[in-house]
């Protein structure tokens, strides 16, 4: 390999990684929707999609095509610029956080070490939090620009809810960061080689997952899009592919939350590794995907099981239960760490 072609090859590798990760993520989102419809249907003693393809497996494809070919209806009195901007903000921010998620260790192909991660930031965890905190604008602006009361209610509820639960979410992660002593997602995983963080931070995990479900606007915290009272919430006035973008953003956020839960509490890609070198390099990715799948399943399971909170219950739960418990958890963790260090 000549040294002059090195930068070109490196750029190509990065580009290839971006394309592969995006394609995998989009497929994962499409099939998360299929899985949700199937699992919820089974919980309610129905069959779910069965007609398109075997077991309805081609249903996501049919849905995508339908979204593409539907007429886009734009209400007359909307704020045009913001109305068109909002779905792009939600979509971009939901997909950007995948850039720092590590999927596995590394593989060497033709003398090039390829790490299973698009880029490794030393503040990777904070990057994910920053990007998800910007994602709320998509929802808020969609609600405001639609110039209609139900979307506005949805947008207001969502911003209040996300601000409230972001604090508990952050504090739950702080306890893990205290143990790991690093903000790099790769280092946090490496440090769990002996024992997964779920055994050191069981309370932290429960706090994180509860707050994360609220962050992603999922049942039982899906008040911003409560169908029975708000028609559809912030995306009521959106149709065709703009609606699909909100839809995909929600599922991408679910995948990000699952990735973060796996990395922070369940040892990321760690798991038994055996066999020839190629298998050894790929097995961690398989373990990682399996863990993500479990989280997505739990998400859907919770949706199929629990009823929706009332709005005041949601707020008082966030501020009066989740936040104090998260604070005590951080305090206790740091006390234990300080006691061990001395």
């Amino acid at each position, binding site marked *: 390999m000549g040294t002059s072609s090195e930068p070109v090859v490196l750029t190509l590798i990065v580009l290839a990684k971006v394309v592969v990760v995006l394609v995998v993520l989009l497929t994962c989102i499409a099939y998360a929707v299929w899985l949700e419809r199937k699992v919820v249907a089974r919980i309610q003693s129905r069959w779910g999609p069965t007609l398109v393809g075997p077991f309805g497996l081609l249903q996501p494809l049919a849905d995508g095509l339908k979204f593409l070919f539907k007429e886009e209806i734009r209400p007359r009195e909307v*704020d045009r610029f*913001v109305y068109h901007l909002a779905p792009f903000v939600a979509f971009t921010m939901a997909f950007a956080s995948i850039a720092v998620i590590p999927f596995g260790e590394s593989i060497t192909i033709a003398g090039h070490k390829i790490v299973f991660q698009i880029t490794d*930031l*030393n*503040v990777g965890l*904070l*990057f994910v*939090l*920053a990007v998800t*905190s*910007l994602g*709320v*604008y998509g929802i*808020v*602006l969609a*609600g*405001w620009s639609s110039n209609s009361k139900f979307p*506005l209610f949805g*947008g*207001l509820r969502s*911003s*209040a809810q*996300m*601000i409230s639960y*972001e604090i508990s979410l952050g504090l739950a992660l702080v306890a893990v960061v205290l143990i790991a002593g690093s*903000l790099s997602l790769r280092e946090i995983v490496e440090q769990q080689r002996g024992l997964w963080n779920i055994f050191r931070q069981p309370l932290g995990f429960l706090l994180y997952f509860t707050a994360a479900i609220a962050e992603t606007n999922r049942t039982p915290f899906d008040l911003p899009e409560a169908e029975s009272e708000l028609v559809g919430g912030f995306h009521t006035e959106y149709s065709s592919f703009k609606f699909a973008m909100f839809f995909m953003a929600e599922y991408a956020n679910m995948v990000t939350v699952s990735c973060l839960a796996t990395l922070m509490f369940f040892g990321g890609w760690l798991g038994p590794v055996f066999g020839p070198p190629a298998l050894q390099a790929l097995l961690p990715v398989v373990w990682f995907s399996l863990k993500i799948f479990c989280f997505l399943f739990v998400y859907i399971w919770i949706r199929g099981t629990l009823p929706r909170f009332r709005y005041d219950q949601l707020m008082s739960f966030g501020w009066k239960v989740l936040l104090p418990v998260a604070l005590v958890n951080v305090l206790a963790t740091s006390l234990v760490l300080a006691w061990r260090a001395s």
Partner: protein
Amino acid sequence: MLPLFYIFGAVAILAALGVILQETPVYSALSLIVVLCSLAVVYLLLGAEFLAVIQVIVYAGAIMVLFVLVIMLLNARRETTSDRSRMARWLGAPLLVAFFGQFAYAVWKHFSGWEAVHTPATGPQKIGEVLFRSYALPFELTSILILVAILGAVVLAKKEI
């Protein structure tokens, strides 16, 4: 790196102009978010990753969300322009030019010999050490100040506690 700095510097200045020139409050708030994010990119170019991310989380992700929330709650539509006084119309532009001229002259005179210093990347660990060792007292005092402000806001907002 330098072209990127110019691009994001220009974006920041244009968006900052947008903050004052836009007539719809939500547009002003959006412009301010663009300013904050492009400043974060400038921090990133200087190698201050931690500061860049914190800038986005705290300002763009938390404070500005509250701004936008308040604007939406008040349902503030387009601003009504006041009748500009004649003095402001005639004196405004020359005074602005004079002010910026003076400002540019002061910056040029003071910093013309200075070189941009590239400090080795300061990670969260370094910042934490400085914050909690050298500046522990000011840091804690600031947090008490913020607590006082929160209590004051609650007292003002609630009629009976």
